[in-house]
Each structure stands twice: as structure tokens, then as C-alpha cells.
């Protein structure tokens, strides 16, 4: 059989082998894309949900806070972490404590916090109060909303509707309150930070 070879390749595979190789190549491309996108997803998770450790109240309360967020420490709140890239209203996590006697209703600190906020912001409204389980213990969670208006006369910015959550975790003689605040449009997007933050807290 004389077959003219018109190329530098001279392996001379049969058409069937060539077609089989094409099919393998197709599957290899698909596999490659799946692997690349899987790695991309992993990279996304590692970048977005990277945390740094923190400790406040002389190391009495510790946990992990999003690594790319700005952190401020003080007396009240003990910690304020905010995402500087989250638009006109920075998504924020706050950590504070309130004294609480053993026989007192754990919702009282939340009510007091609500009164403070209602006086400071516009259109404060409590949405719902629930009992939730956090790390095997019961906690009180309150969802609220308000309008944040920039009162600076030189800033031309629309008010932002803020949605927030207060979570009261009872401890001996005190309650640890974690607050999550976000623009109502990005509330769900950042909720995972709140969940991870709460799960990381130790006291």
C-alpha cells in the first residue's frame, strides 16, 4: 500500500484512531474548563472569606473577622469591622457587651439598644425577634431596619435603607451582642460574614 505522507508528522494513525483522539481531546477540554472553574471558585472563596483573628476585652472575647475589612477597637462597641468596598453604606459587624443579671430577661439589652438607635437614626423599625440556637446554646436574634441619611449639606447622596441583625448571646453576668448592618440590597450577600463571625466567637 503506497500512501503519500504530506507532513512532518509521520505517525500514520488510522482515521479511526484520529477520530478517537478528537473525542478524547474534546473531553479533555471540558475537563480542563471544569477544573479551571473549580479552582476559580475555590480562589473566590479563599479571597472573599479570609479571616483574621481578633481578641477584645483583655482577651476575654476572641474570634475571627474578615481580613479585608477595616477594624476599630473601643469601649462600646468593643469592635467595629466594616467593609470599605461595600458602597455608600459600609457593611459592618459590631461586637459589644452589656451587663445582665442571671434572672433578667435577655431581650432587655436588645430593647435598650433599639431605643438608643431609634433616637439616633431615621425610621427605625423592628422586623422580628426570634430565638435561635448558636453553638448549642439559645440566643435572641432581632432583625430591624432604618434609614441612614447623610446630614452633611455638601454631600449629594440619597439616603440608604439599612437592614440589621442584633444577636444576643448570654454569658455569666453579661450578654454579648453581635450586630450586622448592611444596605438592604446587599444584606443577603454579606450575611455569611455575620454567620462566620458569630460561629467564631469564643468567650
Amino acid at each position, binding site marked *: 500500500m503506497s*500512501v503519500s*505522507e*504530506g*507532513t512532518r508528522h509521520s505517525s500514520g494513525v*488510522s482515521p479511526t484512531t484520529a477520530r478517537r483522539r478528537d473525542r478524547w*481531546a474534546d473531553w479533555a*477540554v471540558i475537563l*480542563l474548563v471544569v477544573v479551571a472553574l473549580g479552582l476559580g471558585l475555590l480562589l473566590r472563596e479563599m479571597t472573599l472569606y479570609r479571616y483574621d483573628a481578633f481578641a477584645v476585652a483583655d482577651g476575654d472575647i476572641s474570634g475571627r473577622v474578615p481580613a479585608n475589612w477595616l477594624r476599630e477597637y473601643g469601649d462600646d462597641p468593643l469592635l467595629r469591622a466594616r467593609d470599605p468596598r461595600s458602597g455608600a453604606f459600609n457593611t459592618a459587624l459590631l461586637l459589644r457587651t452589656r451587663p445582665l443579671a442571671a434572672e433578667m430577661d435577655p431581650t432587655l439589652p436588645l430593647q435598650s439598644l433599639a431605643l438608643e438607635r431609634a433616637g439616633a437614626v431615621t425610621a427605625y423599625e423592628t422586623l422580628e425577634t426570634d430565638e435561635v440556637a448558636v453553638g448549642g446554646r439559645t440566643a435572641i436574634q432581632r432583625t430591624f431596619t432604618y434609614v441612614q441619611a447623610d446630614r452633611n449639606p455638601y454631600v449629594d447622596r440619597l439616603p440608604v435603607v439599612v437592614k440589621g441583625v442584633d444577636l444576643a448571646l448570654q454569658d455569666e453576668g453579661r450578654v454579648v451582642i453581635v450586630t450586622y448592618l448592611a444596605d438592604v440590597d446587599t444584606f443577603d450577600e454579606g450575611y455569611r460574614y455575620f454567620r462566620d463571625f458569630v460561629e467564631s466567637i469564643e468567650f
Partner: protein
Amino acid sequence: MEEVTCCVCRRPVGADAKRIGGRCFCAYHYAKATQERPSVWRAGLLQIVGLLAFVLLVELVLGLTDLTLDGWPLLIAGIVLSVVPALLWLFFFYQQDRLEPEPKGAVLGVFILGALLAQALGIPLVEQVFDVRRWLPLGTWSHVLGSILVIGFIQEFLKYAAVRYAIYPTLEFDERVDGIVYGTAAGLGYAMVLNLGYVLDIGGVDLQAGVIRIVVTALAQASFAGLSGYFLGRAKFEDEPVWWLPGGLSLAALLNGLFTYLRGELTTTGLTLSGGGVNPWPGLVLAAVVAGATFALLSFLIRRANRHTLAGADAKGSVAPEGGV
């Protein structure tokens, strides 16, 4: 015994068929597969020069007339600008390719398929599923790797798929260089949708910066799709190993991702009292250099492959056809 058929038209060709690697060809498709198509390179070169001239023309008109548009006129101007790169390429390509033109329906079909895949899958995947705007800028490594793994692979795979699963198995894909032609068409379709999305999202576009961005996107998308198209063209007509196509796609995705990152770095400037924040000109220079280098390299590689094939055929004493049969 297995019947020997042409790998393009599937017609029986007999035992003495011409081969490139392990693939058999009828005389007509052997000649087509190894055909030189200078018109493709001329059209590519004219496209790059034409787009740069188009940018300068728009900038000149805007500079001389102090033209400012807003509302609907601005939106319509943005839409027209988005479509110009594809129209320019089609014009140059068919003007240069008059002797033996690719079927307009096939080229337009791949162009539209590239556009549809961008709108239906590419943009939703990049913008919504991976939500790259939220995390790419958070670090240099996340930016570089994310641009390659997410933006690069999604965009390049969709453009590759528009060629591989639409035109590649057909009789119209009968030359090595067709991979580049149809890849470019898919890339320009993809670029058009990216540009339209950019214009429509912000309800118009700052014409001076917008025209540069539109041209940069078109040049980049066309170049990288042309590159993966080159690998497709070789894969169809030669005996390439299994890693050839994944390798080609990876290279296109790598270059796409690096380009995306570099463009962001080069065009972002610090804020000054006089405004600013973005200077699009370095992006245009980068895109023109990338497009020029890519098309020059592909031209060299295709010509070299054709020379090797024909030289091999001559050495074996077979007839090396010139042009179509």
C-alpha cells in the same frame, strides 16, 4: 478493512490518499487545507490599523467639535460604536477575500453564536455566578489568578465552543486558517456583546474613553479567539496529540487573563485634584501590540505548517497542489 475516507468531506479516497499526519484527504481538500490565504492576514492587519484610525478619528471629531451628547443620542452613539469593530473586520475580510470568500452565512452564524454565548452564559457566569467585581481587586494574586481561571477560561471556552461545535465539523471548515477566521468572528461577536453591555449598563458612554474601551475589547477578544482557533485549525487537519486543544485553550485563557489584569493596572491612575482615575490610552497600546503580535505569530505558524506539509509531499514525490482543485 476500514474504508479510507477524506477527513473533511468523508468521501472515499482510496489507499493512495494524501495524508497530513494520520488524516486522509481527497485532492481538493488537501489543497484547501494547505492553501495560503494572505487575505486573512491582510484583513487582520487592516483591522488593527483601521480600529486605531477609528479611535483617532472619533477623538479628533470630539476634540474639534466639542461635541457632547446625553440621553438617547449618547446611548445610540455608544451602540453604534460597539458594532463598528465587527463591521470593520467583516468589511476588510470580504474585501480582501473576494477570490474565494468564506460563506457569509457561516461567518455571520459563528459571529452571532459568539454573541449569544456571551449574553446567555459568559456575562452571567462572570458577573453573577463568580461575581468577580467583588473579589478580584482584593489582592494582586487573586486578581491575576482569578482573571485567568474565571474570566480567561469562561470567555475563551465559549468562543472556542462557538467554533468547535458549530462550524468545525462542517465542510466549510476546510483550511487550517479557517480556525483563525471563525475564531476571530466568534471573538468579535463576544466583544460586541461585552461592549453593548457596557454601554447599556451606564445608559450611554463617555465617548472619548468609551471608544477606546470598545476597540480594546474587540482587539483582545478577536486575538485570543484567533489563537485558540489556530489550535483548532491544526487539530482538524493534522495528527496532533490529545493535549493540543486543551493546551491551546489554556494558552488563550492565560493570555486573556494576563491581559485583563494588565489592562486594569495600566489604565487605573490615582485620583488627582483635576479628576481622573482612568487613563484608557495605555490599554489601547497594549491591545494593539497584543493583537499585532498574535496575528503576526499565527501568520508565521500557519505559513510554516503549510510549507512543511508541501515540502513533505514534494519529498515523497507526490503532487503538491497549488490553489483549489
